[in-house]
């Protein structure tokens, strides 16, 4: 197994799948400014995915390119976190999904900056600037909704209760993570957990919302074991490349 290739692919898939989800908000967000905001964040994440996919394709060599990796794999070959593929739900659901994701990736990239792999460090230096304002945006919304009306507070608390079970997967180290950390290429995910939890709690406190008790955590995305939602997402995202392979425009 090429560990570096698989490592880069995990990071690429996370960005691609959540970017695709966010893009589903285009023209449908609650109001114009937020429509533009979600589309901008989606675009940044597609950009991040492209950087990782280009790198993955260059590691794989031969004739593989970024589009092949993004559009021509089957569901079980995707190694994104389960959180990324979850449906948008209502606006508060999307905000919580994004907030959990951004607060993890902010910490992750601040470590990946020091990777011994030059290209990964370079992508991290680019991405950290963007995830910083994504996190600022999602945090503000968590606070605004949580600290808004009793209805918005109730709804966003339900969103947290719903998405919390996917949050432990950020910190699971699989074989690829361990190998990459050993080589000082990758990040120790487990070590990020306590700071992540502290940061999340700080925002939740301002928002008058709580971390749910006793959640049964689920995982499996990094082994290709996905929820039912990824297949539906792919059927839409891959449609063009499946119907007209190698189409260019």
């Amino acid at each position: 197994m090429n560990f570096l290739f698989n490592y880069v692919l995990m990071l690429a898939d996370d960005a691609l799948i959540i970017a695709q989800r966010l893009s589903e908000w285009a023209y449908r967000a609650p109001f114009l400014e937020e429509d533009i905001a979600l589309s901008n964040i989606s675009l940044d994440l597609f950009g991040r995915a492209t950087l990782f996919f280009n790198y993955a394709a260059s590691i794989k060599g031969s004739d593989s390119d970024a589009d092949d990796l993004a559009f021509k794999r089957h569901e079980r070959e995707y190694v994104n976190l389960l959180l990324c593929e979850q449906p948008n739900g209502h606006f508060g659901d999307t905000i919580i999904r994004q907030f959990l994701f951004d607060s993890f990736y902010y910490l992750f990239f601040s470590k990946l900056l020091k990777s011994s792999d030059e290209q990964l460090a370079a992508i991290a230096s680019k991405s950290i600037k963007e995830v910083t304002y994504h996190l600022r945006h999602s945090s503000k919304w968590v606070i605004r909704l949580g600290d808004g009306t009793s209805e918005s507070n109730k709804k966003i608390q339900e969103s947290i209760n719903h998405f919390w079970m996917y949050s432990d997967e950020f910190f699971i180290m699989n074989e690829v993570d361990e190998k990459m950390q050993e080589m000082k290429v990758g990040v120790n995910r487990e070590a990020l957990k306590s700071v992540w939890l502290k940061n999340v709690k700080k925002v939740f406190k301002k928002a008058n919302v709580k971390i749910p008790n006793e959640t049964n955590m689920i995982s499996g995305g990094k082994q290709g074991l996905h929820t039912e939602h990824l297949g539906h997402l792919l059927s839409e995202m891959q449609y063009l490349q499946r119907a007209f392979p190698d189409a260019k425009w």
Partner: protein
Amino acid sequence: MVMKTKINKVWKVLENIPDPEIPNISIVEMGIVRGIKYDHDTLNVIITPTYSGCPAMDFIKTEIKENLIMKGINDFEITTSLSPPWTTEWLNEKTKNKLKSIGIAPPEKQMECPYCNSDEVKIISEFGSTACKAFYKCMHCIETFEYFKCI
């Protein structure tokens, strides 16, 4: 010497290619062109994206290719570099004034309305019509305007 002349010629060509989203500024002024140098025999044009999802990057590459070929420069490569990451600190004063002249508040910590220079401004959205801009309103002249974000 021949190499140096050629490098200068390429700079001149690139200085005349407008940024596709803010056309009164060139891709050189925007800090997208990071360098032009010879790697052995190949002339290498090094560019960097402003934002990682910048949809204009492919267009910019095509523009560079077409413009250089039109000036008879055929043997070159375009390389994308990510580090150091693009920053608005690379925009000089002249470029910032050009932004202001088309109603975009330049990337400064002390922001002013590009129309009336008031500092009584209010953010409408941190996200604007392109990845690099935020949306503001001036409370003095009541105009809305875009702000080129510091990153």
